[in-house]
């Protein structure tokens, strides 16, 4: 049996799965100040039911780390960057006070084009030490293609400032995009301690209960990872909550179809896409705290409307406000909401029907409509707003820039067949939304705990992107910063073999289940021609054990 846990902002949900079937579910309020207690409250009844010896594993999804950063902010950290030529380093605001710019540069092929200045580094170290800063991120432009500068700077800083903890950019991510690497490195610093604290708290707690089942955590890309391994890169578990919802919906939607996962909450509706059975990943990396990062995550759309959105009449027209003033009027709240409209139209049994009707009537008077017609108008407007956001998400996907002829030839013009509704306000609105968009509306039976179901069903995944430079006899892996000699790699086939071999090795280390099939996501080769002759080859190969859910193999992406 598997337990899935989702620590949300309001509730902590737990489900117990047996052979992919939900045998028990439980909801407990989340108490931010006593998180572990909330967790135990949700978990306890399930543990009793399952019997601890029958538990295969426990999988956790949470927005907790994101929330902690949002509420507590980041600890003071020094940002030491080696920006080299190009954009002004202040073109992006990293919201860090202690920024140090160092000379030195490497280019896109990892060649040193400007040496470091050791004196400058020692001055920087003295400054960091003097200010009593204990954490530092060292990030260089193109450091993934040659990490010597980052390593040398870190070496000097550690030597000069005893106890300083340094994160190196190339270890965080080797994907191109220096500003995002900087920000992701800062997030890595910010999440590390918080994650470890949370992790050891949970371990203690489970130990006290005598639970020995392994603990996993969901990542933003929909794969799981053993908790201790996740501690190496906690930043990847940021946003695992929304990923869990998509996986939960995936488990509950017809295989191979194209669907929109619609999570209608209090004041926002969150959207994700499942294209021909595969969740769509964000092409640009997750946006966290308003900043783009290198964290791989599902593509997310959102619109500021939900069951609790405040409704207003302005200039004789209905307005859906992007905020809430409290619960729905029918639940004792201060102002009319879409939930009151749903109640009046008999789409939900929530709250007091007479109060809901009164709320609609109050607004209707100013529109010249009776309560029922006002409710219909509210529902139409709400549904239209969400339908527009769905359309926008599809067109954004269609309009994503592509850089190869073969990619452009494959025209993107999918539209959803189904809407899968999760979240509290979905049951009432989804049928209307289905009518508006011409889609089937599916409300899975366990939609109220979809995130926890998704977490429980998630599998261990692994994606590695190799970059070979045969002229330099060099390769690196984007995801983990590993660098080495490319040895005998001289063709695309060599590179693919090499990458798959490494993938299998790393897969075994992190516990990708036996029987998983590795796949090549993409591979591409460029000849480097100098003076009319081939000087070497640049080869990119991305291989993976795809994310997905147990029982179905659909989480792969491209």
């Amino acid at each position, binding site marked *: 049996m598997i337990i899935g846990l989702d620590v949300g902002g309001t509730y902590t949900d737990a489900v117990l799965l047996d052979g992919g079937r939900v045998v028990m579910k439980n909801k407990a309020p989340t108490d931010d100040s006593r998180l572990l207690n909330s967790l135990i409250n949700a978990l306890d009844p399930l543990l009793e039911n399952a019997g601890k010896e029958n538990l295969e594993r426990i999988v956790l999804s949470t927005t907790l780390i994101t929330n902690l950063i949002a509420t507590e902010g980041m600890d003071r950290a020094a940002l030491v960057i080696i*920006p080299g*030529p*190009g*954009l*002004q380093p202040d*073109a*992006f605001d990293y919201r860090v006070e202690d920024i140090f710019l160092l000379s030195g*540069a490497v*280019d*896109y*092929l990892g060649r040193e*084009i*400007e040496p470091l200045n050791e004196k400058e580094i020692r001055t920087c170290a003295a400054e960091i030490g003097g200010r009593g800063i204990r954490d530092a991120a060292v990030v260089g*432009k*193109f450091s993934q293609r040659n990490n010597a500068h980052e390593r040398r700077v870190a070496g000097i800083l550690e030597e000069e400032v005893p106890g300083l903890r340094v994160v190196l950019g190339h270890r965080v991510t080797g994907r*191109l*995009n*220096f*500003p*995002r690497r900087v920000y992701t490195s800062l997030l890595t610093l910010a999440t590390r301690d918080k994650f470890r604290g949370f992790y050891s708290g949970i371990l203690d707690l489970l130990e006290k209960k005598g639970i020995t089942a392994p603990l996993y955590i969901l990542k933003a890309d929909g794969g799981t990872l053993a908790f201790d391994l996740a501690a190496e890169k906690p930043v990847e578990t940021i946003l695992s909550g929304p990923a869990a919802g998509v996986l939960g919906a995936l488990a509950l939607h017809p295989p191979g179809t194209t669907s929109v996962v619609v999570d209608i909450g209090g004041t926002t509706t969150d959207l994700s896409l499942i294209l021909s059975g595969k969740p769509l990943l964000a092409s*640009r990396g997750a946006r966290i705290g308003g900043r*783009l990062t290198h964290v791989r995550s599902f593509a997310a759309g959102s619109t500021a409307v939900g069951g609790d959105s405040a409704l207003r009449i302005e200039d004789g027209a209905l307005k859906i406000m992007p905020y809430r003033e409290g619960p729905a009027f029918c639940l004792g709240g201060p102002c009319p909401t879409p939930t009151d409209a749903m109640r009046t139209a008999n789409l939900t049994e929530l709250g007091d029907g007479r109060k809901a009707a009164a709320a609609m009537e109050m607004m209707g008077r100013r529109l010249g409509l009776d309560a029922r017609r006002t409710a219909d108008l509210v529902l139409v407007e709400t549904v239209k707003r969400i339908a527009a956001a769905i359309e926008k998400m599809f067109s954004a996907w269609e*309009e*994503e*820039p*592509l*850089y*190869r*002829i*073969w990619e*452009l*030839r494959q025209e993107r013009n999918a539209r959803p067949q189904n809407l899968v509704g999760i979240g509290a306000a979905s049951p009432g609105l989804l049928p209307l939304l289905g009518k508006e968009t011409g889609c089937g509306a599916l409300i899975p039976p366990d939609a109220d705990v979809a995130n926890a179901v998704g977490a429980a069903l998630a599998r261990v995944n692994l994606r590695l992107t190799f970059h070979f430079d045969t002229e330099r006899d060099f390769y690196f892996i984007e995801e983990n910063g590993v660098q080495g000699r490319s040895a005998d790699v001289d063709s695309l086939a060599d590179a693919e073999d090499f990458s798959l071999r490494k993938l299998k090795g790393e897969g075994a280390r992190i516990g990708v289940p036996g029987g998983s099939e590795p796949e090549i996501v993409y591979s*591409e080769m*460029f*000849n*480097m*021609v100098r003076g*009319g*002759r*081939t000087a070497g080859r*640049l080869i990119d190969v991305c291989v993976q054990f795809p994310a997905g859910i147990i029982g179905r193999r659909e989480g792969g992406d491209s």
Partner: protein
Amino acid sequence: MKTRKTGLVFFPAFDWAISPAHPEREERLLYTRDQLFEEGVMDLPQLLEFKPRAATKKDIARAHFCVPDIEAQATDAHLYAAGGALVLADALMKREIDNGFALVRPPGHHAMRIVHGNRGFCNINNEAIMVEYLRAKHGLRKVAVVDTDVHHGDGTQDIYYHDPDVLFISFHQDGRTLYPGSGFCDELGGPGAFGLNINIPLLPRTTDEGIHYILDNLVLPILDDFKPDLVVNSAGQDNHYTDPLADMRFTARGYAELNEKLAPHLAVLEGGYAIETALPYVNTGIILAMAGLDYSRVREPGYRPEDFRETPENMEYVKRLAESLRGVWNDRERLGKRAYPRLEKFEETGRSIYYDTDGIREQRRESARLCGECPGYQVIRSSGTGPDARTRTVEAVAVHGRACESCRAEALECYEGLKKSAIRPGAVYLQDKPRDRYFRFSADGEVEIGDD
């Protein structure tokens, strides 16, 4: 305040090459990609990235007569490169962007009105296709195209040689020392557009200083005077001091400053083959300059400003050149009347054009209808002989978008006549720009070229 937006189409065509070791190969924009992506420029709020679309046959037919047909000359790569520029043109007209850069390949500025094959790495002219699209779809009238490639933009010159609404300015390394061997000061435009084709041949090794002198003292004042609705930069990057195919001394900084001063509405990449030492830096510089961002840190490895001073002798040449061309510009009406006294109804010219990539020799006869009321039309007869000694001959009638009704009627009559006398198996073409309709007549009958 609304953020100023610069549109970008990046279409590096990573799966297209003329041949494996050709300068126009898959690798050409690879390091530019690396630099732009690593800089994170696409994440800047000032930048808006667009996906290219495929240009339609009609888009191409507005600018070209392709032999034997459009399919033979424009592959998918060409369609996306040209279409990338069109996407930005639309975005500009919809005011989604304030300016835009189509960082696309393959290039186009050597592609002339008649296309028998590839010349100077070009098959179809991305700028001309864009300008024609803007005129047909968005009603623009006056356009200036400034060609900042090191090679003379002979294709663009050819397409607009008779067009009084398009000012074409090209500065380039002197045609005596570089392909395509044209672009001299006396190529000033046809009888209806005299003085609106300005060539500025610069001596090899001209630096930032010389080029900026030309910009400040010749190009910008002429643009001020012409007052175009739209300025296009035909943005080659091979004036760069490390370019392997040319011999100029322009820098990334120089290119960035040029774009800041020129402030083109739309820029379209042309040549530039120092794919490691120039393109990553030049492209970054151009994008930042167009977006109004600080480009002062954009510099090539080892760049030292003091290496790019002009010699006194060359500066003297540059100054004299600027002065004399300013004189020609100011006096263009009088000089035009002298060059083309307009004694006949038609001005007849002939020329021979060589297609270096495909080894084709084109012989062309052109006759331009001179009209006192409008820009008239041209009738062209062109024969292309390939290395196999086979010759294809086509005839074409090109009616200007502002042609008067009587000229248009005359041109249509001429087209009908050519259809009757057509040399088989040739083809006869009609560009009926006042109606935005395009026809091709061959042994298989007449076909209207539409939006696919």
